[in-house]
């Protein structure tokens, strides 16, 4: 008859918590756009400036609430004006409503294309009964709002002009105190109207510019195949200019935030308290109740106007930051940019900016990414096959094809790496574990490729080795992911304190030290290749080479890596000492349970061949090794080594000029 799942999602009628239909049926009638207009509850013309400002501000609150992961129906579309924008006679409100609808459409498009959202970030819109106004083109919508904007601007300017002329004649006026009072009150009313006009002007301008900047970004990302071959340049600047003007209008907006109408407390339904009532004219939180699935949140708590504008301000600066990706085209730089952007925590990145970053860097599929990856490998370790000229590949079409295929295969996991950094922080961890599996297969292929190229290069006129080039590059990325995976556990507060010893141990003894040796290998290989190429073209221009020598590859990363290694070493020794002192309690007595946890924590690493997964027994041995006779002695010894480690970490960080950003 019905299964467990169905039974779990069944609803009980007439239960206020479950029965959405009951809420709309009681209390009072929920009026739609036409009904509200008929009953005189919704003005479509002759709105006061205060009303318009209030409606605009609340609409932005709705928009921001939507961007925070609530449903469109319960946020933006509680605004009745958006249901029938073309029926609004007031030009200002009509053009604003159209722009908002267009904004919703374009934001949704970006988020879908970015494809880095989860249910907690963004509500995929199901079918709503209101069609988006496709008949109005982007440019027409912009034109409409610009007309209104200019009208406002005229008013603002003419007031300023009269004010200026008044100021000039003021001294005489001050003399005639008799009729000054009258004039003064008139001035006040005028002044107030001027402020209102200014406030409205700023809001309209912001909406238009924000929308325009998104249009620019959309146009370019759908037209260009890839960032690498786009000429970038001016259109990014155009978008940035729009956004900069946006942020300039925000200060006026903030100052005039109190000008809009506010809901009257008396208009709330009396029967039950709901956080979404009362509302100002034009907003009906229950209007879409019947279009929602049966089990849906009953109401949505909207952001306040103040929160909304702060959000918009940060959003604008985030989008401006994201556009800087065009200065970070090479793969390695881009990956770092993605990770840094994802890490920035105050304020945290949002679904729109994260999606934009994805769309901007990887607009149409991932095919041309293979060129970027090839370039990245070349820079990372300078494999003779890619670096030297002539190389093995020059006269060997078969080898060339094999290398091409390898890079083609790399695009999937590598673009996945970029994508992972676009997801929200909490979701990244599981995905990192998944990408390790894909990287493991790439690693296997890289090994095969290296040995294949090695057999070829040994047969060359000047025999040379080609072992460990491509595989070192893959290893580097694997280690990066493994470190990121373990560190994310700290960020998400997954580990309990008694797990710290082996987590830090793993980072200190293995991951960071493997990373150090990988970077070292890359460094020395590069030096080797540079020496070879120098030998080869000794006769040619010498100046160029001396310049090249100055840059030390991987230097900074190597230093930072060793600093982090020392830091983890320090932590490891400290927590081990804590444990021996009994300051870190383990909740169980037998070691087998710890083993279980240990194996669970490092499970995703099992798929990787190099570095090989470290068994629990090895950790126990390391712990035993640290014990030197007396417990007290051991503890003192541990603290002393921890101290040394921390000191070394400090020195290394300072020498590399690394500065800590502490988010409080």
């Amino acid at each position, binding site marked *: *008859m*019905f299964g467990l799942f*169905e*039974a779990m*999602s*069944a*609803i*009980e*009628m*007439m239960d206020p918590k479950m029965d959405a*239909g*009951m809420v709309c*049926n*009681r209390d009072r009638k929920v009026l739609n756009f036409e009904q509200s207009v008929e009953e005189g509850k919704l003005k479509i013309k002759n709105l006061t400036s205060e009303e318009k400002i209030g409606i605009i501000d609340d609409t932005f609150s709705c928009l921001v609430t939507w961007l925070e992961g609530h449903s469109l129906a319960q946020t933006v579309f509680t605004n009745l004006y958006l249901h029938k924008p073309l029926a609004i006679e007031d030009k200002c409100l009509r053009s604003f409503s159209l722009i908002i609808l267009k904004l919703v459409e374009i934001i949704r498009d970006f988020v879908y294309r970015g494809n880095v959202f989860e249910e907690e970030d963004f509500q995929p819109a199901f079918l709503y009964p209101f069609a988006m106004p496709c008949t109005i083109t982007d440019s027409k919508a912009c034109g409409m709002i610009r007309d209104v904007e200019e009208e406002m601007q005229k008013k603002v300017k003419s007031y300023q002009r009269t004010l200026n002329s008044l100021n000039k004649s003021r001294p005489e006026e001050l003399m005639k105190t008799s009729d000054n009072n009258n004039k003064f009150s008139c001035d006040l009313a005028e002044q107030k109207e001027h402020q209102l006009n200014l406030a409205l002007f700023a809001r309209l301008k912001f909406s238009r510019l924000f929308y325009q900047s998104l249009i620019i970004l959309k146009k370019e990302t759908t037209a260009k195949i890839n960032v690498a071959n786009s000429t970038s340049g001016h259109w990014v600047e155009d978008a940035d200019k729009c956004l900069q003007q946006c942020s300039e209008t925000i200060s006026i907006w903030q100052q005039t935030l109190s000008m809009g109408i506010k809901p009257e407390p008396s208009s709330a339904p009396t029967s039950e308290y709901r956080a979404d009532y009362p509302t100002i004219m034009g907003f009906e939180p229950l209007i879409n109740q*019947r279009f929602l699935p*049966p089990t849906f949140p009953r109401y949505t708590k909207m952001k306040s106007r103040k929160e909304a504008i702060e959000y918009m301000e940060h959003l604008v600066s985030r989008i401006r930051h994201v556009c800087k990706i065009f200065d970070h085209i090479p793969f390695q730089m881009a990956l770092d940019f993605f990770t840094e952007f994802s890490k920035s925590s105050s304020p945290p990145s949002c679904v729109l900016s994260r999606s934009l970053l994805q769309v901007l860097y990887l607009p149409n599929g991932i095919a041309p990414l293979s060129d970027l990856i090839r370039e990245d490998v070349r820079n990372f370790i300078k494999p003779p096959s890619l670096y030297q000229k002539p190389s093995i590949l020059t006269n060997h079409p078969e080898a060339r094809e094999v290398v091409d295929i390898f890079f083609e295969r790399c695009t999937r996991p590598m673009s996945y790496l970029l994508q992972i950094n676009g997801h929200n922080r909490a979701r990244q961890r599981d995905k990192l574990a998944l990408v390790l599996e894909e990287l493991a297969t790439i690693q296997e292929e890289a090994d095969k490729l290296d040995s294949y190229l090695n057999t070829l290069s040994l047969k060359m006129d000047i025999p040379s080795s080609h072992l460990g080039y491509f595989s070192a590059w893959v290893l580097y990325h694997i280690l990066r992911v493994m470190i990121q995976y373990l560190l994310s556990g700290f960020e998400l507060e997954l580990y309990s304190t008694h797990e710290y010893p082996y987590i830090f141990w793993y980072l200190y003894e293995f991951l960071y030290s493997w990373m150090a040796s990988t970077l070292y290998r890359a460094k020395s290989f590069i030096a080797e290749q540079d020496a070879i190429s120098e030998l080869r073209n000794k006769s040619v221009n010498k100046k160029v080479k001396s310049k090249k020598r100055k840059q030390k590859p991987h230097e900074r990363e190597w230093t930072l890596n060793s600093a982090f290694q020392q830091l983890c070493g320090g932590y490891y020794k400290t927590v081990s000492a804590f444990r021996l002192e009994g300051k870190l309690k383990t909740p169980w007595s037998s070691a087998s349970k710890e083993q279980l946890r240990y194996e669970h924590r490092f499970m995703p690493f099992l798929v990787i061949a190099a570095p090989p997964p470290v068994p629990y027994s090895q950790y126990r041995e390391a712990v035993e090794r640290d014990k030197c006779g007396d417990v007290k002695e051991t503890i003192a010894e541990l603290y002393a080594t921890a101290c040394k480690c921390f000191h070394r970490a400090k020195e290394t960080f300072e020498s590399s000029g690394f500065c800590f950003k502490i988010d409080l």
Partner: protein
Amino acid sequence: MDGKSKLRQWLNRKMKIEMSDKRVLIGIFLCTDCHRNVILGSCLEYLKFEECGEKEEPRSLGLAMVPGHHIVSIHVSY
């Protein structure tokens, strides 16, 4: 016919229930209990059934339990 066999006959048939707040539910009669609670499968909700009948756009509820004391009338179609 005793009550038991009558109820058994109604099983899996289309049932229309009018509720105390005038809403009408139409769904498949799946089960009931001693409190007159009724469970309807693939249930549809009509707000203005009297005026518009089944032409009105219904809201789909899926599985729904109707408490016995809110049932005003039931109709079964054979």
